[in-house]
């Protein structure tokens, strides 16, 4: 099914352990994966299954205990700060909790200006920078004139998360790791955020990787779904394969946990 597509991010035996001896916890247990360019990927699992740890390893924020991560076919090398910076030009993230994602001492302008600088636009004239920021904000339905000189905590959760997408719009990475991008936001804003993300994907041609506990969301957005249980991928395939014909009881349980609006809940199984 993936013939002719290039893997942009692959892993072989990626493992992360925390602690020593009796306190040792294996958060990610030797996973193999190939994420192909242009696909929308979801990693689904319950809390504590190692999704976020895997995401941090993919981002290069923490090092894997064992195993290799390949970026665009080559073994990833992010030893020095310069190489890391180069790597982060092609892979970016949206975090789960917008309220703790921003430095409360920095204004919104500086969040966006950092992105322009990252793309090498640090020496652009001020008008050009404002133009870029305005464009990014209007893409996510925010008004830059209203945001300038404000602090991120003065915005609502949905607005903060949209600002995060505006960041991505400015950075134009090849891969976007979205770690539960909608779990801290009210249900109404959820679809808006997801739609904006999809629109952004079409615009700049990136590969989004969703990390979520919500299998409904995974089915709604993704092409390929990976199911993660206790640090391992237990099932993977296209969204239709995995969700319509789950092979593992774990997957079935995840599917059953999604509340359905039109059906009556069977409280006896809860």
């Amino acid at each position: 099914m993936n013939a002719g597509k290039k893997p942009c991010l692959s892993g072989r035996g990626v493992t992360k352990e925390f602690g020593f001896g009796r306190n040792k916890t294996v958060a990610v247990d030797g996973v193999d994966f190939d994420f192909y360019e242009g696909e929308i990927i979801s990693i689904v699992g319950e809390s504590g299954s190692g999704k976020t740890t895997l995401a941090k390893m993919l981002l290069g924020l923490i090092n894997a205990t064992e195993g290799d991560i390949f970026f665009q076919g080559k073994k990833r090398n992010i030893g020095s700060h310069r190489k890391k910076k180069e790597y982060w030009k092609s892979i970016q993230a949206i975090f789960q909790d917008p309220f703790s994602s921003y430095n409360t001492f920095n204004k919104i302008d500086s969040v966006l200006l950092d992105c322009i600088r990252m793309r090498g636009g640090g020496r652009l004239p001020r008008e050009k920078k404002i133009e870029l920021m305005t464009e990014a904000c209007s893409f996510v339905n925010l008004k830059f004139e209203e945001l300038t000189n404000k602090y991120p905590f003065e915005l609502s959760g949905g607005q903060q998360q949209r600002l995060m997408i505006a960041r991505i719009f400015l950075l134009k990475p090849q891969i976007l790791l979205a770690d539960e991008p909608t779990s801290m936001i009210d249900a109404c804003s959820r679809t808006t955020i997801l739609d904006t993300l999809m629109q952004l994907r079409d615009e700049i041609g990136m590969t989004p990787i969703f990390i979520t506990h919500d299998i409904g969301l995974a089915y709604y957005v993704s092409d390929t779904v990976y199911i993660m249980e206790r640090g391992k991928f237990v099932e993977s395939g296209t969204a239709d394969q995995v969700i319509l014909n789950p092979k593992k009881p774990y997957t079935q349980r995840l599917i059953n946990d999604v509340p359905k609006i039109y059906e009556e809940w069977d409280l006896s199984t809860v």
Partner: protein
Amino acid sequence: MKHTIRQVFRSGKFVVGFSIFMGILLIVTFYPLIIRDAPLKIIGQGTFFAPGIYVNVYDSMGSPHYTILLDDAAAKRIADKLDDDDRQAIKEWLVAAGISEDAIEIENTESLLDLWVNNFDPTTRIPGMTNADRNYYIRLNTALDGLLSTEGAIVASVNPETGALEEKGVIRQTDYVNVNQVPNVRVLPLGTDNFGRDVLTELVQATAVSLRIGIVAGLIATFIGLVLGLVSGYIGGLVDDVIMFITNLFIVIPSFVLLILISFSIGQEQRGAFTIAVVIGFTSWVWTARAVRSQVISLRNRDHVNLSKLSGHSIAHIIAFDILPYIASYVVMALILQISSGILAEAGLSILGLGPRTTDVPTLGLMMNWAMIYQAHILGKWWAYFPVIIVIALIAFSMNLMNTGLDQVFNPALRD
């Protein structure tokens, strides 16, 4: 920022502590502008003059004299001269002479003297009384007679040519001078110390020097602790291990012992106030380093730090802008505590005789040291050490109050 400052000043504890501290600072700043004496100038010949107003006797003879008639003046004069032992002796004589014990009021000077003047007769033989005792009573009677006289005293000076005494004037017992008209009056609110120096002037200067020592020591300790804590907490790994090893070494060796050893090895002559401050600073950074490290470790995995990394910022930038502002309030509180403990450490060192050398400036610890060496506490000369203790206590108290107030503002869980 503005909001935080307003909140800080709404905290009662902080305001009280801040006012006390500011009061001390104001006194320390403005007192030397008003009283321009050198703090270590020896003005009194003798040790431990009691607090009070000192009027020049020579000048008071030349000042205009006013006659004021007061009924109890004589009684007061005698009461001042009669000490408790004399009163007891008078009572014993009167009882032996056959006066009923109930009629004698030892505290009532007037009635006691009346009884004495009416009944005393040097020729009366009291059984069992030695000659020495009899002579004592005769001397006492003469002294009281002199006090009771209304003659006044003649002031005379020596004529340089003839060598004869010439009368300059008579000072009567009803003569008064107005203190404001005497040219030389010195108020010593806290008396003088063992060297005859004005304690208040010395104390103000000592407070200023001690505060300076505390601030320098606190700044050095906080700076070292902050830098080591930030580096070891954020970078982690081997760097963390090495720094924590050094820190733990410093914790195991009590810093005061270290302070004593360093201070001793520097030698008396090299120990200026600034040197002592630096030594205190270099031995007391340990707890700040540990506390900052643990705060940084909890901060370094927060999402905003990750976002800053993803925005391509360097480690220095992240530490300075994404970690430091979050622990700034904590560092300010640590600084306040370090200043107050620096002042206490200086006092402790000086009491042991390992403080700054004694020739340039007084410090609170040195004043305690002097008072102790010259046994002010045994002699009951409270003014030599008690004000110093009060000042040390006030400084520590105000700083701890400020610290608690800040803590309550920055840590809402502690608000009452």
